[in-house]
């Protein structure tokens, strides 16, 4: 039996440590396709979070009733229901946004982030934890899509959330709003974040070694810890 983590960690792990886009590399299709502007990214992330949260809640509530053999089919049915609800509501209330996001709203059904969380988490945990986990993953997704969309919008069309932020003298980088720009920005962002992470780990490791070198009477436990860091 794995150790239960605190409820707070249940939420925050999705925001950073297991960020769906930067760390788990899930949900790439919407992350790359709709992030031509910050608004599109945010809308997509909110729609995904809604679907993720409600399907997680329902699935963790009925997790003991679903026979293992048909669990994936049941998950897809439940997810598809919520996606259709989002699609209808968006088309009724936000026609402009819905036109912009186009086919990518129905495609949330097959977003591996959502199915992945159901299979890995909601189908094994209590409803409260499942909802917290989903909200955390949703927040992580929002941060990723919002920043990716923001960077592409600023460099590709000189605006941020529709407001001009770059001077007219700045020539917009057309490639940023083309598909290639999505791959370039995402790749560079992931590279940068991994580089920062490695540096942080490296520094921690060095500090640890330095501390142990200062204290010659180090215990065996600590020695093992040093090994596990490398």
């Amino acid at each position, binding site marked *: 039996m794995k150790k239960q983590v605190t409820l707070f960690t249940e939420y925050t792990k999705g925001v950073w440590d297991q960020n769906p886009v930067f760390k788990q590399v899930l949900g790439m299709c919407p992350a790359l396709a709709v992030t031509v502007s910050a608004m599109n990214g945010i809308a997509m992330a909110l729609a995904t979070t809604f679907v993720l949260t409600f399907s997680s809640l329902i699935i963790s509530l009925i997790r003991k009733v679903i*026979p293992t*053999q048909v669990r994936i089919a*049941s998950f897809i049915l439940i997810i*598809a*229901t919520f996606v*259709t*609800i989002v699609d*209808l509501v968006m088309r*009724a209330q936000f026609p402009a946004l819905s036109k912009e996001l186009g086919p990518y709203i129905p495609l949330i059904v097959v977003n591996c982030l959502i199915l992945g969380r159901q299979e890995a988490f909601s189908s094994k945990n209590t409803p409260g934890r499942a909802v917290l986990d989903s909200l955390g993953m949703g927040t992580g997704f929002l941060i990723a899509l919002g920043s990716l969309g923001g960077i592409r919008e600023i460099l590709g069309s000189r605006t941020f959330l529709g407001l001009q932020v770059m001077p007219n003298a700045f020539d917009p980088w*057309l490639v940023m709003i083309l598909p290639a720009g999505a791959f370039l920005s995402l790749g560079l962002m992931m590279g940068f974040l991994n580089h920062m992470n490695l540096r942080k780990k490296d520094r921690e490791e060095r500090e640890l070694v330095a501390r142990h070198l200062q204290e010659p009477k180090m215990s065996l436990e600590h020695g093992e810890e040093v090994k596990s860091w490398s």
Partner: protein
Amino acid sequence: MKIILSMLATLSVIGIVSGGGLAMVSSWADPLIAANKKAATEQAIFQVQTAAKDYKKMESVEYELYKVFDESGNAVGYALPWEGNGFQGKIRIMIGLSADASTITAIEILEQVETPGLGTKIAEDPFRGQFEGLPADPQVDWVKGAPPTKENEVQTITGATISSKAIVAIVNDGISQLRSDLASGEDMAQGGAQ
């Protein structure tokens, strides 16, 4: 056997509950979606026919066609949604035409999936504005790399020649279809069969 039954039961129950829920949401959303669609069409009609105050859908033709009237009820022309192939996919435009279908009042791009930054310029004024008050007699022609010299010419966009030519082709196609229908059916001149 027991497992098969429980599998069937689970999926059926989920399906029925989902279906019921969606039917409820859909019965709320459908009228709103239809209203949005109508508002978008209406807006496009009034954008290509600035003098228009009222419009009526023509039922005598197989395609969508709107006859447009000014405030005193006189027919001022037509608004014709037409589509064709662009550079990457379908382009759908609203063409505004004078009452005798000889002059274009304006065009409006309704749907397009052209290259951002290049082909998407077809929806911007330097190109789109060229169609305002353009005589389409006998048809619209395009010129490349130089300002138009004849009345019925438009200049293509640098870097988006295919998209520009596609617009011209769609406009010509729509107008010639409308003209042939206007010539054959006299009842259309009376203001539609509705």
